[in-house]
């Protein structure tokens, strides 16, 4: 069995940031990812980020990715790619399959799960036809692999993902025939929505996809209007010729390893459903096991970076590499930045929930 001080599962924005902070403090870090390249979903985010300079405002996700990779390389963390963590056991030891062949048993002192999220699907008749895809899938294909999955797209969902991916499809030369939103108003930021609307994409609120039609692949989509109780209005159906239906219906924390680790969970709709309870150091109800990023509640890449940093500093402290005073100084700065990212009507609610979780009268609150 191999040993390491701090194992991090997932080399996305949260995992990379945690690795950088911990390794800089002197911790022996092993960063594990199942993909052949680190960076998680950052490299498909070709839009500019919001926030202040400390939050990489005005920088594209892809460039933040390169910056983090560069820092990881310099900080001396070990990066283990093509490595699937298939189990977490009694002493936080990990079962890892490398390159689909070799099994490695790794014994860390501390573990951070930064496994990210999985896209939600939406079931309607015809949703299994080839051509019905997740928005993240389309973002990967278009922005990373430079291939269009089709030419005439129906986007389902007007959150920021639906809006941004619509715009990125337009940039790549596809036609976005319509964007439908079941709620009576647009879910994402107005700045993203207006960019899409200015390009002539109809944004249809109180509307959803009733059915996808086609023999083996998507050929048409049937739309239907919804009344104030979200019930389909008979006779309001209309049919669009499309070859792709893109589902941007939110994300859920990717929590299998956390479930396996036996930590306590809580269900919070604003954060995408079931997620592990965690305190102000991103530590779960199991001592030495941390979480960060979308697994700790669906937010943005910028918040994932800050939560990763927080977990990295906390792990370094608990391993004795940072004094409580030095760690507290760093954590205060990071928490301040996290609070700045959680401003506005949506952010404020998330901030309150996180605080309730972390500071629930000195013990875990359900």
């Amino acid at each position: 069995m191999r040993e390491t001080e701090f194992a991090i599962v997932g080399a996305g924005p949260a995992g990379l940031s945690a690795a950088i902070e911990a390794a800089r403090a002197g911790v022996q870090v092993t960063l594990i990812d199942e993909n052949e390249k680190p960076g998680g979903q950052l490299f498909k985010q070709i839009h500019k980020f919001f926030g202040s300079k400390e939050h990489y405002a005005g920088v594209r996700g892809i460039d933040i990715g390169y910056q983090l990779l560069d820092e990881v390389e310099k900080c001396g963390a070990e990066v283990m790619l093509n490595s699937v963590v298939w189990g977490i056991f009694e002493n936080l030891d990990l079962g890892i399959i490398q390159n689909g062949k070799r099994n490695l048993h790794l014994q860390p002192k501390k573990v951070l799960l930064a496994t990210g999220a999985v896209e939600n699907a939406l079931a309607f008749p015809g949703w299994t036809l080839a051509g019905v895809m997740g928005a993240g899938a389309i973002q990967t294909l278009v922005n990373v692999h430079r291939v269009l999955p089709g030419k005439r797209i129906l986007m389902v969902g007007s959150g920021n993902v639906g809006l941004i991916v619509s715009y990125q499809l337009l940039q790549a030369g596809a036609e976005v025939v319509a964007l439908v939103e079941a709620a009576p108003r647009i879910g994402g930021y107005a700045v993203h929505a207006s960019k899409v609307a200015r390009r002539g994409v109809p944004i249809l609120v109180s509307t959803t996809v009733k059915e996808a039609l086609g023999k083996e692949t998507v050929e048409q989509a049937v739309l239907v209007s919804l009344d104030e109780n979200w019930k389909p209005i008979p006779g309001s159906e209309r049919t669009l010729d499309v070859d792709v239906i893109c589902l941007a219906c939110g994300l859920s924390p990717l929590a299998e390893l956390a479930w396996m680790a036996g930590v306590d969970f809580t269900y919070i709709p604003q954060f995408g459903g079931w997620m592990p309870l965690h305190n102000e150091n991103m530590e779960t109800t199991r001592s030495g096991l941390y979480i960060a990023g979308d697994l700790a509640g669906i937010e943005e890449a910028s918040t994932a970076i800050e939560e990763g940093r927080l977990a990295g500093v906390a792990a370094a402290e608990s391993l004795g590499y940072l004094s409580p005073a030095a760690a507290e100084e760093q954590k205060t700065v990071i928490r301040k930045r996290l609070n700045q990212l959680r401003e506005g009507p949506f952010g404020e609610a998330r901030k309150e929930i996180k605080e309730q979780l972390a500071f629930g009268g000195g013990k875990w609150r359900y």
Partner: protein
Amino acid sequence: METYRILQHPILGEIQQGKPVEIEVDGKTISAFEGEPIAAALLAAGIRVFRYTTKRHEARGVFCAIGRCTDCMMIVDGIPNVRTCITPVKAGMKIQTQVGLGKPQEMQP
């Protein structure tokens, strides 16, 4: 043949993928870039059905494109249930549409 490649991009510039190679899909030769996911090469060539389900023989294609959902599994060089969205192209690969669980089978000549 109609291409689905994004050759020019306003943010990302000109396409810069790997070395151009050829792969075989159900006996037909298509062009691909070395190292790109098999699924990307197939979609670029306009191929959208990757497999048929076991019980109802329904068509399936790419759904998540990051190796999570297993909808895009095909038979690659005789090995079934390969997630084509995260398996890189190598020159001369032989890909087959998978039916059901895709028993390992001999390659077509």
